[in-house]
């Protein structure tokens, strides 16, 4: 027991000193455990040395502050640390692959990357677009509704944290199979259906109530998500770049505004930086915050007004780590110290210890620094919006963080020490696993296979989710998630954010967890290609990327090895395609009693379209039009939905031919700009057959396509492989006959072919390699199976 190290100070409020100056290794670790701060031995030793030098014992407030700041969640130790990988030394994954890709691409239109709460790119007319995607996996696992709602609330605050007005949300979710056997569920793991219902409702609850349209996303299913739900919440904002103020200085007042501080969300970051166990639900529920979107809506109004009047010198959100990270990071960023009086912080109820106040992650709070002369005006604006705002301290000139409670000094830490945790050194290993190419005869009924694919959860319509999110609020959604009366799946969303400009924002994403089971490198490459081609399909270009990693415990070398592989692909593909990363987030330690999460990289793409009138949707427009395929089809069915149907993983995963991909994207954009393209749809899960079917039932027309014309690898000698291969960088394009010469001219030198035509008869037909119809199905039947599969699963 370490109780003897804890000395209660004689104060009216709870305050402890922890005498660890003479503690031994084991005791240091026990103190770390006892306080729930999750620091390892090297880190605790660094703490011990610091206080030895200071010749005094630390308080609980100080140790908690250090614990929060040094957590994986706040400091991203793995991404910033050193890694030994198969004999190679990597000095920071982030710098070596992600930030370096952006440096190499070096786009002039990036306003702020990685620096802040969100990435910002310029949009024209003096505006910038801010974007951020967050992970909220751990909280959503133990409390699905609250976890997902506060994930959305948190990412919206990230957008407010760069002075932007939130204009759209995105959500990408990963669940276990909804029909998972209850008997196989270990103690402490919630059933996927329960998690699904809660998460889906939680996201809607926040975005809808705040009046922010949720316009893009994805839902994937995988066995490994049973114990590790994956919740990515994104937000996009708009800001006049001239109003972007980040110039705080010593003497500025620190103001906390919004919701009150309570005991919800204590140690959220340390919880998020550990594996989930059987006890997580009971132990960690208090780590999940409680959401109140209306509070944040009011906060948003006040912040936008303060921005427009340029009254504050800096802003940041209170998220992971609460005040401890917001105050510390603000002070560090502006080369200041800070003094905070913790008893000034408005509480939901009395009786919170100073350390609890400082680390609580209660929602709907923002931190602003305000020049003294503007303070009164700022407080008035908050008051008008019925938002509580309180000055709690000030920035100082001396690089020291001082916290007081009832005038008693409860913490004094050097900022330089606080932001220099010992560099993590981890070992990573990667060996290509051995897989076998399956051998099975071609099924005789390919229409049946297509129907099964369309009703498989990963491909089936997500309408039951999309409809419970308001995607129309603000009235600027030009291309919606669901297209037309048949609610077809659009590839990307297009927004028209400015009244006096036709310029649009294009949002899309890419995610391919199945490929990662074979090779995380090609999974990452495919996710980038998918995000970009979805964007390109509707008319997007000048694309910026966001990376969100959900991985297992990085302290295990194989897990970290696959993370390194994925990062390598991020660099290679992003630089080759000229698409910089502008923001990202990692969530590691996604492990449960059922094992680690399947490594899952979400790539979000933010593009622009110079004129929304050029935007293209995915549904067939009329009969008699030509259908072209652009891009080459390879025998790449490893990790495909087709193999999954047969219970096979396979070996050859889709790759990205970066040089060709770039030329294809450019050509498709040129064809769209020339006004030739009537419909465009990307080929992804389920390949050519699924993409064609989706275009058909979304528009209410049939198609007759000839597989012999598909540009393909010679070895692709089977109809089922051509139909269902998931090779990257491919599109189906609908064109009227008059446009084909010009189109073919634009496509010259790229793999493409006219496969056939759209038909009035609402039947989808494919002619096989032997010249006979090998797949024929009613478009209405296909559409109905696609639409009903998932909604029937979740209707009560």
């Amino acid at each position, binding site marked *: 027991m370490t109780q003897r190290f804890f000395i209660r100070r004689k104060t009216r409020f709870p305050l402890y000193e922890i005498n660890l100056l003479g503690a031994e290794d084991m005791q240091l670790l026990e103190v770390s455990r006892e306080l729930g701060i999750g620091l390892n031995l090297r880190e605790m030793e660094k703490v011990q040395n610091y206080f030895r030098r200071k010749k005094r014992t630390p308080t609980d407030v100080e140790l908690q502050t250090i614990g929060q700041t040094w957590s994986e969640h706040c400091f991203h130790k793995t991404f910033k640390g050193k890694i030994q990988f198969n004999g190679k030394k990597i000095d920071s994954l982030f710098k070596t692959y992600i930030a370096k890709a952006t440096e190499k691409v070096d786009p002039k239109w990036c306003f702020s990357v990685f620096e802040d709460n969100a990435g910002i790119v310029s949009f024209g007319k003096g505006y910038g677009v801010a974007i951020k995607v967050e992970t909220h996996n751990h909280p959503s696992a133990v409390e699905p509704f609250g976890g997902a709602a506060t994930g959305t609330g948190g990412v919206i605050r990230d957008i407010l944290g760069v002075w932007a007005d939130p204009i759209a949300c995105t959500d990408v979710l990963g669940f276990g199979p909804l029909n998972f056997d209850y008997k196989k569920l270990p103690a402490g793991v919630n059933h996927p259906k329960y998690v699904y219902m809660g998460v889906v409702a939680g996201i*809607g609850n926040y975005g*809808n*109530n*705040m*009046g922010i349209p949720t316009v893009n996303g994805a839902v994937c299913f995988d066995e490994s998500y049973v114990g590790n739900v994956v919740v990515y919440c994104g937000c996009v904002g708009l800001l006049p770049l001239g109003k972007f103020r980040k110039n705080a200085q010593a003497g500025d007042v620190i103001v906390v505004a919004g919701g009150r501080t309570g005991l919800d969300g204590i140690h959220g970051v340390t919880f998020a930086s550990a594996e989930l166990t059987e006890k997580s639900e009971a132990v960690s529920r208090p780590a999940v915050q409680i959401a*109140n*979107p*209306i*509070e944040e*809506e*009011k906060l948003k109004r006040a912040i936008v007004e303060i921005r427009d009047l340029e009254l504050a010198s800096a802003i940041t959100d209170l998220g992971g780590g609460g005040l401890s990270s917001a105050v510390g990071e603000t002070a560090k960023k502006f080369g200041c110290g800070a003094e905070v009086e913790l008893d000034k912080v408005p509480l939901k109820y009395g009786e919170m210890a100073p350390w609890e106040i400082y680390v609580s992650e209660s929602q709907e709070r923002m931190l602003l620094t305000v020049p003294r002369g503007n303070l009164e005006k700022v407080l008035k604006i908050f008051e*008008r*919006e*019925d938002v509580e705002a309180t000055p709690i301290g000030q920035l100082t000139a001396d690089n020291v963080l001082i916290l007081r409670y009832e005038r008693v000094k409860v913490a004094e830490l050097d900022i330089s020490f606080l932001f220099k945790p010992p560099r993590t050194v981890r070992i990573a290993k990667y060996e290509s696993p051995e897989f076998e190419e399956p051998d099975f005869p071609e099924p005789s009924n390919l229409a049946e296979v297509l129907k099964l694919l369309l009703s498989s959860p990963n491909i089936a319509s997500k309408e039951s989710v*999309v*409809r*419970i*999110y*308001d*995607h*129309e*609020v*603000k*009235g*600027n*959604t*030009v*291309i*919606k998630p669901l*297209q*037309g*009366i048949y609610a077809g799946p659009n590839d990307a969303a297009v927004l*028209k954010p400015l*009244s006096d400009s036709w310029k649009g924002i294009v949002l899309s994403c890419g995610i391919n967890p199945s490929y990662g089971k074979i090779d995380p490198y090609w999974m990452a490459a495919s996710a980038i290609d998918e995000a970009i081609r979805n964007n390109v399909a509707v008319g997007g270009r000048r694309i910026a990327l966001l990376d969100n990693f959900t991985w297992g415990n990085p302290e295990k070398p194989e897990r970290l090895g696959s993370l390194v592989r994925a990062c390598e692909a991020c660099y290679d593909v992003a630089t080759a395609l000229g698409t910089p990363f502008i923001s990202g987030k990692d969530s590691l330690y996604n492990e449960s009693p059922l094992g680690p999460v399947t490594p899952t990289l979400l790539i979000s793409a933010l593009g622009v379209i110079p004129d*929304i*009138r050029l*935007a*293209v*949707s995915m*549904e067939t*427009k009329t009969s008699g039009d030509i259908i072209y395929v652009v891009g080459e089809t390879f025998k790449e069915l490893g990790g495909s939905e087709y193999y999954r149907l047969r219970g096979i993983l396979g070996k050859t995963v889709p790759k990205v031919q970066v040089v060709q991909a770039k030329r294809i994207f450019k050509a498709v954009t040129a064809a769209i700009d020339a006004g030739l393209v009537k419909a465009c749809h990307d080929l992804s899960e389920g390949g050519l057959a699924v993409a064609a079917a989706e275009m058909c039932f979304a*528009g209410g027309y049939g198609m007759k396509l000839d597989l012999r014309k598909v540009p393909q690898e010679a070895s692709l000698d089977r109809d089922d492989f051509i139909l269902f291969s998931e090779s990257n960088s491919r599109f189906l394009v609908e064109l009227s006959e008059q446009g084909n010469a010009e189109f073919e001219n634009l496509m010259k030198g790229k793999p493409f072919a006219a496969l056939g035509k759209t038909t009035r008869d609402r039947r989808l037909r494919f002619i096989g390699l032997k010249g006979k119809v090998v797949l024929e199905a009613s478009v209405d039947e296909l559409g109905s199976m696609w639409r009903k599969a998932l909604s029937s699963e979740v209707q009560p």
Partner: protein
Amino acid sequence: MKRADIKICLLRVGGTNCDAETKRSFEALGAKADIVHVNELVKQRNLIEYSALVFPGGFSYGDYVRAGAIWAKWILAKLGKDLEAFVDDGRPILGICNGFQVLVEAGLLPAFEGVSQQPEAALANNVRGYSCRWVYLKHENMDKCVFTWKVPKGMVLRMPIAHGEGRFIFPKEKEKEFLKKLYDNDQLVFRYCNGDGEYAEGGFPENPNGSFHDIAGICNPEGTVFGLMPHPERAFYWWQQPDWTSKKRMQEYGDGKLVFESLIDYLERKG
């Protein structure tokens, strides 16, 4: 009144979130529209300076009780007299989505015998939960509603809905009586229908929420107070339509514009 002199008050409170696009719709027609926080209105007491009042969509007070209930009671308590004077003067009031819920909760709709002390109807939770989708509406009003007088009777309009509580209902025992009143007073404005104008008859998704008699919007007996669940401000421009990419030629505006235009033209003519 000259168009440029028309001044619309778009009222908001914490949770109101459709005010900006509603303002944009009025301004596109050349009218002035102020977004006013209720706190300001309580302080200034200047409601009477406005030509018309709008309760935009949103989640006032989080809709943590019945949707619209808290804001309705709040308004009645703080601004009851001003509001009454406004209605008595025949100045138009529009409630969209959450605003419709507020008007019903405040007794301003259907207001069979003038503003009622208790709500006479309710906008209950949707049979199938929250839904965001485009719906068809059939215009039912003869000529009374000042927000739709430019819309021919029987015309089919298209607008999106996005709500969890929009199922219009009367007390079961008064259904017949109240429905007759709606017809007798020409208070019925929009009913859910299909693209061909056939009434939804309660069928999903044409009637998206299970509303009694497919009711999507009603006005008061004078035709000056109007509430609807669909969002006309999200159907104002062609590019907001769900299928503009499949149309060769789009009309420049969506059907939602008719609602704003009717009001502005009415105010202009009223003098």
